[in-house]
């Protein structure tokens, strides 16, 4: 029986309605009801729902088309292939914030950790109360359910949980802190811990192996290797897109009745700006939230071997109301070595402990916002970590260190340059009194949000509550750009639910949008 099951759908020859640069050997003009720019959480979901409803859908993706079999143990090759700019994208600020975006068919869902959480009630209540998104919690409920069914959101199988996660839970339990099993879009993940480099087992139900196969099944066409240069328009009405085939430079023109931008919170505002769309709100590109992350590395006396086990099996939720989530995340030795200030023999000695390390990170719900500027047509993020958020990160480092010492850690390496290491919980608590400027903290993120925020008030929001751009016609946004505020949890499921809701709106109003 096992011999007849494949790791993922469409594994094998490239499906006939997936096109790559090999198929685009000259200028090409295509027609569709809907063109979706980007194939990640928002774009793939929208494409699948509209294709099933009978719309003629084209998805354009700048990155390449890969299948599960292409995802190997070669970490840096995966980073080069699947990440925009090899993962070396940076928001300018002090400290600068390294952020990552996927660039492949399936978008960032191919490289994310697969955490699948609904938007927290308190966030939806705020959107309802302050932003005029009346009744949004109740309205999103069936869309969350639908998304969770499609991408198989489920807790982890117990036997697949690795030691790093068990130690995190042990520490949280010892501290008496709330720790919950993570919900992830996975179908029996057996724990290769390679989520960030393309799931090689097919267990993670990224858009590549869920929504996109569904979209293709219902007739959508996916064009990989096509970078959209701009959206064409007739006055305020979007009429299609013009793109370029990467590598060859051939032009691709798509004429469509509805244009959907799903390029992520960094690239969507830049695409709209370079296409000449302006928001009366003045908010396009503003309101950038980033969920700043930092990490500590704990060294234990016992074997951890964190790469044998699932990614982020638990989340510590004790401090969620204070904007902090904790989780254990294993990284390959090369990525970990890159994060250490040590070098030479000291680096070698430290890395000898690799299999006894627990890498634990935190997500901070930020209070500051940055912006994306479009410079020569390209986006550049600017983001200054707020003092309050820097203080929260520092507090998070202390709390996480206490947890790890409670689990039996012997040493903890800190994310502050020159701060040295900790040997017990007292030293951890003493950090609070130390002067550790924010600029010395290593901050990274994978959650960019808010740069085309939705709302009913066109003087304050870029799009309406369904993602339709105010002051434009037949132009829609379906990605994390829409979030009016940071949501404090992993954003994938919220993006997918909003995209599903937006697809429903398009279907309900088909005459208006595609006639």
């Amino acid at each position, binding site marked *: 029986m096992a011999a007849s099951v494949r790791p993922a759908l469409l594994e094998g020859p490239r499906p006939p309605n997936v096109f790559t640069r090999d198929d685009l050997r000259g200028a090409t003009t295509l027609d569709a009801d809907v063109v979706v720019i980007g194939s990640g959480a928002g774009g793939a979901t929208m494409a699948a729902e509209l294709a099933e*409803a009978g719309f003629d859908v084209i998805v354009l993706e700048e990155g390449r088309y890969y299948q599960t079999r292409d995802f190997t143990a070669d970490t840096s090759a995966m980073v*080069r292939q699947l990440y925009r700019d090899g993962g070396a994208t940076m928001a300018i600020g002090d400290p600068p914030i390294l952020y990552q975006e996927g660039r492949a068919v399936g978008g960032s869902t191919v490289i994310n950790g697969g955490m699948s959480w609904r938007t927290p009630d308190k966030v939806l209540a705020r959107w309802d109360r302050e932003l005029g998104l009346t009744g949004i919690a109740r309205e999103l409920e069936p869309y969350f359910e639908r998304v969770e069914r499609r991408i198989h959101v489920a807790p982890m199988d117990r036997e697949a949980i690795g030691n790093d996660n068990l130690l995190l839970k042990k520490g949280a339990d010892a501290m008496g802190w709330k720790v919950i099993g993570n919900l992830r879009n996975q179908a029996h993940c*057996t724990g290769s811990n*390679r989520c960030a480099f393309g799931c090689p*087992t097919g267990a993670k139900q990224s858009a590549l192996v869920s929504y996109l196969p569904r979209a293709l099944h219902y007739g959508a066409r996916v064009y990989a290797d096509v970078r959209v240069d701009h959206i064409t328009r007739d006055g305020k009405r979007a009429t299609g897109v013009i793109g370029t085939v990467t590598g060859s430079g051939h032009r691709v023109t798509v004429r469509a009745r509805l244009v959907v931008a799903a390029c992520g919170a960094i690239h969507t505002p830049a695409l709209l700006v370079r296409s000449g769309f302006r928001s009366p709100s003045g908010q396009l590109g503003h309101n950038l939230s980033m969920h700043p992350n930092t990490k500590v590395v704990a060294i234990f006396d016992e074997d951890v071997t964190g*790469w044998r086990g699932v990614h982020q099996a638990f989340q510590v939720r004790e401090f969620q109301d204070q904007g902090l989530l904790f989780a254990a995340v294993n990284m390959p030795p090369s990525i970990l070595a*890159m994060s250490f200030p040590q070098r030479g023999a000291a680096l070698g000695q430290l890395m000898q402990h690799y299999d006894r390390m627990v890498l634990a990170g935190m997500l901070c719900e930020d209070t500051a916002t940055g912006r994306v500027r479009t410079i020569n047509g390209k986006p550049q993020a600017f983001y200054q970590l707020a003092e309050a958020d820097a203080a929260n990160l520092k507090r998070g480092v202390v709390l996480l260190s206490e947890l790890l010492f409670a689990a039996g850690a012997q040493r903890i390496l800190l994310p502050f340059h020159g701060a040295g290491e900790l040997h017990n919980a007292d030293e951890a608590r003493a950090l609070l009194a130390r002067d550790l400027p924010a600029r010395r903290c290593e901050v990274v993120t994978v959650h960019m949000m808010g740069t085309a925020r939705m709302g009913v008030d066109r003087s304050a929001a870029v799009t309406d509550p369904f993602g339709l751009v105010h002051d434009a016609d037949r132009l829609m946004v379906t990605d994390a750009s829409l979030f009016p505020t940071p949501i404090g949890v992993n954003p994938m499921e919220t993006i997918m639910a909003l995209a599903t809701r937006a697809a429903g709106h398009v279907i309900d109003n*088909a005459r208006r949008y595609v006639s």
Partner: protein
Amino acid sequence: MTYRHAATTRAVLRSLVPVICPPEAIPLGDAIVDHLELSLAASPALIQRGLAVGLVAYDLGAVARHGRRARALRGDAAERYFVSWEHGATRLQRQLARGVNQLMSLSCYEQPEMMERVGYRPGPWIAEVTQRRLTVYGDDVRRQQAQILAPDPLRPGVRVARERA
């Protein structure tokens, strides 16, 4: 791949292998520098150019202090010169030293010999868990794949609505 190390970049990076990488990685110096080229090729052009210019400055800056270019420094002299940039007076010096340290550490531990040394053997593990998933959970995996394609319209009767439109 459009990026290639310039001769100076390659020479300076090669000379930094004993400074940044653990002693056991020194025999892998050429492979590390080759790998670094691959990483830079995927990086933004600004980083490629910044690193190239920075390494020229690093190379020439050694002449005043040590009477020879950085690429020709060995042992303690190479170490002391790198430290002087790690703790340099300018932010650019510090950033260059940190950036090179990061990139070279990445390339160092991407070498199979170095992964083996720290016990990281993901290939066989991936093969094992992939097979386990299909063997133990094959029925569930198949069910999930079937539901992905099964009809489940978001709105009832939508095709009719679409045809009317």
